[in-house]
């Protein structure tokens, strides 16, 4: 395994970079859209809730592989040309938005209504209440499952090779078929994934600890 790492580190690093660029972009965009979708899902109006539910069902329910093929091959049919890497980011964003919205929704249900009433009585608009009172608390309340999702996206990015984006997993496959040592190669890839995910988990744990100042439940 060490041998694989030493012999092939330039390509492995290059694949890792692609993995990071694609998944981190998708995660960042997903945070914003996921929160919006969560508010859509908890809207008072049926005509807002319903399409949001349909969106969630589709993007949560179908395999990423298929979603990638759809975005990459069907968008050009309606006249939108997308580069493979753009299609990859777009697909992962659309996908994680659905998952993140569910996480946020559970957090929103957990904020005591009294706090929202206090905001409304102070004249703070519904939208600002969401942004300033609800969202920050939801964010810290749902940090553990959110971290789960972020890490999942990072790992799911291993599927984007199907639309010709050469990321870490694809690089390892290439090495494996060259060296006829799949076990060792995948182990090397695992070490890299693990390193990145540990870093993310660290950041999340740090945030969590910092944010317990004023955490609702303690």
């Amino acid at each position, binding site marked *: 395994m060490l041998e694989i790492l030493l012999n092939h580190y330039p*390509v492995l690093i290059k694949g890792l970079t692609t993995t990071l660029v694609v998944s981190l972009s998708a995660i960042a965009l997903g945070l914003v859209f996921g929160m919006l979708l969560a508010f859509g899902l908890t809207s008072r109006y049926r005509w807002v809730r319903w399409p949001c539910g349909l969106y969630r069902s589709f993007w949560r329910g179908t395999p990423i*592989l298929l979603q990638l093929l759809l975005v990459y091959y069907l968008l050009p049919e309606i006249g939108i040309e997308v580069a493979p890497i753009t299609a990859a980011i777009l697909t992962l964003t659309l996908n994680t938005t659905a998952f993140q919205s569910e996480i946020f929704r559970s957090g929103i249900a957990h904020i005591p209504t009294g706090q929202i009433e206090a905001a409304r009585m102070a004249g703070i608009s519904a939208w600002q209440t969401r942004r300033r009172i609800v969202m920050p608390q939801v964010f810290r309340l749902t940090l553990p499952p959110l971290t789960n999702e972020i890490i999942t996206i990072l790992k799911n990015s291993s599927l984007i090779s199907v*639309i*010709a984006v050469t990321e870490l997993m694809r690089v390892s*496959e290439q090495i494996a078929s060259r060296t006829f040592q799949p076990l060792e190669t995948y182990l090397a890839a695992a070490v890299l994934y693990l390193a990145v995910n540990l870093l993310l988990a660290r950041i999340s744990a740090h945030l969590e600890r910092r944010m317990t100042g004023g955490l609702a439940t303690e």
Partner: protein
Amino acid sequence: DLLETIKSDGVFTVGTEARYAPHEFIEDGEIVGYSADLMEYIMPELDGVELIRMDLPWQGILPGLERERFDYVVTSVTATPERMQRYHLSAPIADATMAILKRAGEEEIVSPEDIGGKVAAAQAGSAQLEALEALAAELEEAGTPLADIRTYTGVDEAYADLGTGRVDVVINSLPNLLEAERTRPDVFEVVGTFGEPVYFSWAGRRDEASASLNAFMDEQIQRLNEDGTLNELQEKWFGAPMNVPLELPAAE
């Protein structure tokens, strides 16, 4: 007309699954191997056209070709009648005759007939699997049936399970098995070939626009076959020249 478009645009995009040493694989980030060298002999004929090779897994190759994300598939495809129906397979580029791989030092298996009672493996849905199933039927008639046939999504995993001992032999085309033996002689050993000769081809779309490109590629491969270039490259990559006909045997 696709060939014209390629010439006027100056780019020829091909899809490759670069996981099949020594045909096509990645070394230091570049796609190299037998097919890469072949393309080097072909490209001068398309004066000034740039070659773009995309590497993507098999699930992405076929939709990519059909949806015109690239013009041609430069990846070794075992020619079977079903595949010929759906795509235009090029003139043969290499011998794909089936062979058997065993663990190095395994004494009991010395010829294809000895695999009765053993567990055999091949890639799911592959031409090799079909050949294996045919062989299994013969063995059964001879009274020495196989213990089991295991299938894998990728052939690399089949090699890995040969290592763990869960399977006893792996069926694949000879060039690929020879490469496995050469890379890890302490683990793998080639037993021998069986069955009818089979060949590797490349593939293009079966539509009208692609006809000219398909014809051009067939022409080029036949030219290189006749002038001995193929044999030279086979010597370089497979260790020995092969006997490859100018055209695929017609499908019944």
